[in-house]
């Protein structure tokens, strides 16, 4: 077992984890933060995307032990009293159907808007689609997801 200390959604957490524990398992089973979904568990679908030190990564392909000292944000940590602009935009544009992929879509959406803004690049619809290569929606509701991300980009 390895002792890990990290900040999850602004709160300090400390636990003992085995070497093979995935960050997705740790968040869901140890911390009971079940908003991070496990879809494919093979790093393809993106339902498990969280932010580590501000960068989107797949929690199912990250070891919990390796995130010692990190600042982790999950979908539960995004809203601050009211919905985050990305969450509000998904609601407004009906950017979800069954909702299973939504936490990962939103975390990837926030990450891409932050990156494009930092680099001063325009987030076109084509760019959003390209950036979402690692997030799969099996309801295939991509049109409204792209609209939601673009709308949120104007409000973030």
């Amino acid at each position: 077992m390895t002792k890990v200390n990290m900040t999850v959604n602004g709160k300090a957490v400390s636990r003992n984890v085995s070497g093979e524990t995935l960050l997705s398992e740790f968040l869901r089973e140890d911390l009971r933060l079940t908003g991070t979904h496990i879809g494919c568990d093979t790093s393809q679908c993106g339902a498990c995307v969280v932010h580590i030190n501000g960068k989107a990564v797949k929690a199912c392909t990250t070891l919990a032990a390796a995130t010692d000292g990190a600042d982790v944000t999950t979908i539960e940590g995004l809203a601050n009293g009211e919905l985050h602009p990305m969450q509000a935009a998904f609601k407004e544009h009906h950017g979800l159907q069954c909702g299973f992929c939504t936490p990962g879509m939103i975390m990837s959406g926030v990450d891409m808007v932050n990156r494009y803004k930092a680099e001063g690049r325009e987030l076109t619809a084509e760019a959003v689609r390209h950036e979402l290569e690692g997030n799969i929606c099996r309801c295939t509701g991509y049109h409204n997801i792209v609209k939601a991300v673009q709308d949120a980009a104007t409000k973030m």
Partner: protein
Amino acid sequence: MYPTKYHKAASIDDAVKALGAGEEAMILGGGQTLIATMKQHLAAPSDLVDVRSIEGMVGVSLDGDMLVIGGATTHAEVASSKEVQKHTPALARLAGGIGDPAVRHAGTIGGSVANNDPAADYPAALLALGATVVTNQREIGADDFFDGLFTTALDEGEIITAVKFPKVEAAAYAKFAQPASLFALVGVFVAKTADGVRVTVTGAGDEGVFRSEALEVALTADWSEASAKGADVSADGLMSDIHGAAAYRANLIKVMAARAVLAS
């Protein structure tokens, strides 16, 4: 996954010690291949030695005209590095096309190179650009480094600390990605180097990344799209699988080479 012990190495010495002490220890970079492989029980390391926190393993610098990329530098860091974009823009673009954004935030150049997946992007760049792999023990030229499927010249306990790239006159990479995995169905890297024209192919060879003599001859004679398309690329030694037959891949090599030349 089978149980494993995790070690965060504080130094190269620390990592070497942990690698030697474990029964079947493996080096962990970004884990974007290794963790997936462990889930499938295709790898079952007794110990994982994480080398990402070792000082000097992350970052891009210039040593004269030589671009030096730390072994644990992520694909996203390479893609967005101003130094890489200025020195060898084709390398920045290649890194920005590996996997998806979340994979690029985790995967590292050292991990990709050490794994030598036959459809990975980086091996094509290293071999075409005449790069040098720097380890904790020695320096290995790309020509001597890649040694067939998932095989390299690395010894046990040898850790990639950096990859060095010389400046070249022109370079570009074109990839036809397999849409589900985003790995190269065929990827072609073309470069005009001090040692002449070098053209490498990933995703297609039975033995992994290779230099295409036919394309090198054609592009040495005439660096043009038409010349790439007219090259005599054989299907011998190319992979056939559900995604494409060897003949299809042979044709795709010419098409990707032509696109790369156009982009160079």
